[in-house]
């Protein structure tokens, strides 16, 4: 059994312990310890019933932890040796864990960390490595998050919107350290979409699959960022694209549009174009109109202006851009792109240099600096 399959069992095992009367925080710690033991023991001695094995070991760990806790507080607390009979679950434990870990009372950073551990089954060390913070920092963030949700009832209905946002944030963290958070977010979103049949969960899954499909083409061998229009499309993962399109079509057929479905539709139109020149920009602008109606987000309006520049020409794009706040993130980069398309290379070069100074990632900064350098080199000769 590989590590991913093992981790799939985590939320259900936590659910069993909670139903037996364990508190969520201790149950979660106990399951983590059981996982560590499984990784150590299973290669030589694989269990016949992996889930049953994990439940037994986790329950024993829970008793140890509860006893240690009781001793520490110098209180006599009677903990049953034999687990009580499990009440039949009325709700889906795994689903309840998604809601608990993305509870609106948690900050986004805490919710992501708790979700990756309790739903995803990642260790604190792995999550810390992915976020480039010390393990002790991540351990504190997770235990603080657990204290925050300690009084939330396990079976109360949760908010799908916060769950989806947490998964989206984890996906965007991408790949650093030894854990591929994008792949992990896809696994968790797929599991969620299967369990709920929620059209926006499906929309988010489709969006992730379609973006993930382009990942091999997005970075050059030297680590440089390759923009969509310049990507080698033969390196896109056609299997992921096909799955993303299928998931999206099924969601759209339910006729309850949301922002993730609309974003996925835009990603699907890009995926559908054999070359950048064949992109259906008119339809993409229509989807951006839907997104503006759904979200009223200035970032969406900025992206719409760039798409409009492709559909109706750079002047139309610049006119749409002129209605927006210049202080928006990526405004200078969008303006630079449209000015170059309109033939004003000197303005474009100046704006690319401005955009590079405002960039929030190193690959983006380097990409924008190269664009300014390219235009300035052209202007000199």
């Amino acid at each position, binding site marked *: 059994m590989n590590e991913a399959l093992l981790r799939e069992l985590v939320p259900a095992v936590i659910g069993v312990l909670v139903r037996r009367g364990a508190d969520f925080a201790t149950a979660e710690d106990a399951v983590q310890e059981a996982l560590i033991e499984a990784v150590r023991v299973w290669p030589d001695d694989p269990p016949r019933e992996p889930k049953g094995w994990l439940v037994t070991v986790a329950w024993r760990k829970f008793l140890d932890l509860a006893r240690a806790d009781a001793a520490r507080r110098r209180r006599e607390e009677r903990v049953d040796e034999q687990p009580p009979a499990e009440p039949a679950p009325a709700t889906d434990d795994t689903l309840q864990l998604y809601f608990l870990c993305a509870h609106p009372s948690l900050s986004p950073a805490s919710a992501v960390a708790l979700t990756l551990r309790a739903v995803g089954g990642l260790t604190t060390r792995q999550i810390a490595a992915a976020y480039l913070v010390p393990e002790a920092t991540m351990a504190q963030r997770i235990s603080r998050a657990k204290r925050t949700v300690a009084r939330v009832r396990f079976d109360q209905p949760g908010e799908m919107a916060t769950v989806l946002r947490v998964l989206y944030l984890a996906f965007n963290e991408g790949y650093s350290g030894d854990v591929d958070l994008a792949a992990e977010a896809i696994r968790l979103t797929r599991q969620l979409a299967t369990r709920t049949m929620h059209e926006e969960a499906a929309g988010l899954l489709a969006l992730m699959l379609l973006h993930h499909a382009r990942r091999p083409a997005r970075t050059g061998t030297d680590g*440089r960022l390759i923009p969509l229009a310049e990507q080698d499309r033969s390196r896109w993962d056609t299997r992921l694209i096909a799955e993303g399109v299928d998931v999206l079509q099924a969601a759209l057929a339910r006729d309850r549009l949301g922002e993730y479905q609309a974003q996925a539709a835009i990603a699907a139109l890009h995926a559908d174009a054999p070359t950048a020149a064949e992109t259906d920009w008119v339809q993409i602008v229509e989807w951006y109109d839907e997104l503006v109606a759904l979200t009223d987000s200035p970032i969406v309006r900025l992206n719409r202006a760039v798409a409009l520049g492709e559909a109706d020409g750079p002047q139309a794009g610049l006119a749409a851009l002129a209605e927006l706040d210049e202080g928006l993130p990526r405004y200078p980069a969008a303006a630079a792109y449209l000015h170059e398309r309109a033939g004003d290379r000197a303005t474009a070069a100046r704006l690319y240099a401005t955009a590079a100074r405002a960039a929030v990632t190193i690959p983006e900064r380097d990409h924008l600096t190269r664009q300014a*350098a390219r235009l300035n*080199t052209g202007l000199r000769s």
Partner: protein
Amino acid sequence: MAKYLLLKHYRGAPAAVNDVPMDRWTPEEVTAHLKYMDDFAKRLERDGEYVGGVALSPEGTFVRYDGEGRPPVTDGPFAETKDLIAGWMVIDVDSYERAVELAGELSAAPGAGGRPIHEWLELRPFLADHADTTE
């Protein structure tokens, strides 16, 4: 072993010999520079002399306490700020001489025309957080 902070300045250091802003280089020169920096960090890491490094955005804000019950005051970014840090690297090396040697190598990173920038880097020793165990 001794730890040193290698500071790179956007502004505030004496002018480099080959002082041309990066967006005025050719794209190939930008690529060569980035590769040099990347290779340098990787080599230090391999040799066990690299502790960490960070690149900073040039846009920053000054913040100060403004009294009980009031939100902090923010100001900036200041175009005229004399000193602006671009980033840092922390190295753990045998001697001051080794730290100077490494800073010199980093300063030789290629810039406009593919020639070394001869940029001034600031080298600051860490203060150890414990006293020597031998007196």
